[in-house]
């Protein structure tokens, strides 16, 4: 059984078919990449898995269970974490607090015990901190631990967002363009982290990325999309050399040249 099964999913925004009959499976323990030109529908697929949108047709199955019967705030509890293409951090909170929000799914205490900060709450908080500290160690976020997000440079924000997703302790991690806007060195770090998440933490990763270099170096399988439709699926080199993919990219850059 695959960890995630996307089955014939279609979504329209008015007249635009953002995702058109897309099907793929993500196996446990692999890094699966989605590639394709701008507007291909990659982020929309992520939003469908996050349950921000209802698909017109098709089904999304995670761990043998359809996601469609779950509201958006259940998705993290099922073990799916994500990052956003346009960073969506909690700006007026510190890095530590942002990561701690990731631990929300493990909240066991209720409002009344929290208002009194009973020993049970304190115990749980110390546990949360110990967990989050591991993420901070892993991503080298020590220097920014108590800094407010508003005021952090772009590259650090990207890493914090990845950390917040890791704090969820996910089975499946969705990374939307983890390396966009990063320098070569920073992209190198991302590649190492993705490897470690897969190998050491046993996290399955579904990733959208434009940097083909990164995609080729970390991913096991790649799916290429264009205008919401599936073009090709296979190993990175198979997909990169697929005629339809080359066509889509050249076509896209031609369009850009005309425009």
């Amino acid at each position: 059984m695959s960890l995630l099964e996307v089955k014939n999913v279609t979504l329209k925004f008015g007249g635009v078919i953002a995702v058109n009959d897309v099907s793929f499976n993500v196996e446990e323990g692999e890094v699966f990449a989605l590639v394709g030109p701008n507007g291909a529908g990659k982020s929309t697929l992520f939003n469908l898995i996050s349950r921000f949108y209802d698909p017109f047709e098709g089904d999304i199955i995670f761990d043998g269970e359809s996601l469609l019967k779950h509201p958006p705030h259940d998705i993290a509890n099922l073990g799916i974490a994500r990052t956003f293409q346009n960073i969506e951090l909690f700006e007026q909170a510190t890095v530590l607090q942002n990561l701690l929000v990731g631990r929300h799914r493990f909240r066991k205490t209720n409002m009344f015990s929290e208002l009194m900060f009973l020993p049970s709450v304190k115990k749980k908080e110390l546990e949360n901190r110990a967990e989050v500290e591991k993420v901070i160690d892993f991503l080298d976020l020590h220097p920014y631990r108590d800094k407010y997000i508003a005021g952090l440079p772009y590259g650090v924000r990207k890493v914090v967002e990845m950390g917040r997703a890791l704090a969820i302790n996910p089975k499946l991690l969705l990374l939307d363009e983890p390396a966009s806007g990063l320098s070569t060195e920073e992209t190198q770090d991302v590649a190492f982290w993705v490897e470690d998440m897969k190998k050491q933490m046993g996290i399955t990763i579904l990733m959208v990325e434009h940097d083909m270099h990164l995609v080729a170096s970390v991913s096991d399988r790649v799916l290429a999309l264009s205008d919401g439709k599936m073009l090709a699926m296979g190993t990175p080199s198979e997909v990169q050399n697929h005629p339809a993919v080359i066509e889509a990219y050249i076509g896209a850059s031609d369009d850009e040249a005309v425009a």
Partner: protein
Amino acid sequence: MRILFKTSYDDDINLFKHNHHRFWYILLFVALLCLPFLISDYMVGEFTNVLIWALAGMGLMILVGQTGQASLGHAAFLAIGCYSNVILQSNFGLPFVISFPLAGLISGLAGVLLAIPTTRLHGIYLAIATLAASIIIEDIIVLAEPITGGVSGLYAPDINLFGYSINRYVDPSAFYWLTLGVVLIIVLFYKNLLRSPLGRAFAAVRDSEISAQAMGINVARTKAVSFGISTAITGLAGALMGHFAGIFTNETFNVIISITLLLMIVVGGVGSIHGAFFGAIIVAFLPQLLSFFRDWIGNTFELGSIVIPGLESAVFGCILIFFILFEPMGIYGMWLKLRTWFELFPFYRRDMFRRQKSYLKTERMR
């Protein structure tokens, strides 16, 4: 200059960040406890007023500052707390120790009730919906004359606290201490909230609903809980206001009070407990300060007594504009800068607090 080192996770979640803080806050509390022995009865009343406003301010702060939801209707919850507290005492014969928390509870439930249909609203729409609630409550008070006394109002009975009777005119110090006790408890609750998962869920909803959802936070429910806690605290403030004023009518808790509350926390500094207190000091002492200056000007220039209608609101408006333009963090922001200046002396740089470039966020979820 003082440098802080953290040595354990406990440092983050302890009530006081370090012993230094603990010392100053305990000193402040002791000073507040001793206050009635040092000042006149009239001033004790004024300080009680500040505390009650600060309490109401903390209630609104949880909603506005912590959860990012607007409310122009919090006077309604002052009214609900005030009326239910007095009605429970007068009509049902309950003692204050029971009627007071019940008043908070009733007000909190009313808040949750208001939140259920309004949590889908944002910004100005939410403000308008809460404003409407405030106006409706005023009407309900008039219509429910048999229990609320309608336009002629109600008298607050003397507080019966374990057989000890407290009337704020007869024994202002006792009422002051009672209020101080309530305020202390709420401050502790507020601090606890900030260091626990619920407080972080509030902040998450405030800063990005979309990623709060992706973190497993039920946004609608979190907003409703925030409304509940916020309006419960405001209700407690309302109950104390009733005993403080002695008599109140439907006019006591009008829309102007709602607006004043909101302006108060903006001037004080949105998002901090300090802000509620700073704002309350301004709101409570501004009229005194103005009349003092008016008399002073009148006497110095021998103009006799001057009466300028609307002066208070005008000055308050100017203060508000000043803060929005120059110090969006309110008085608390100024206080932070001052404190940092002392702590870092002599290394403070002028642009230390300059706001950093912020990244634009789009409405689209991508």
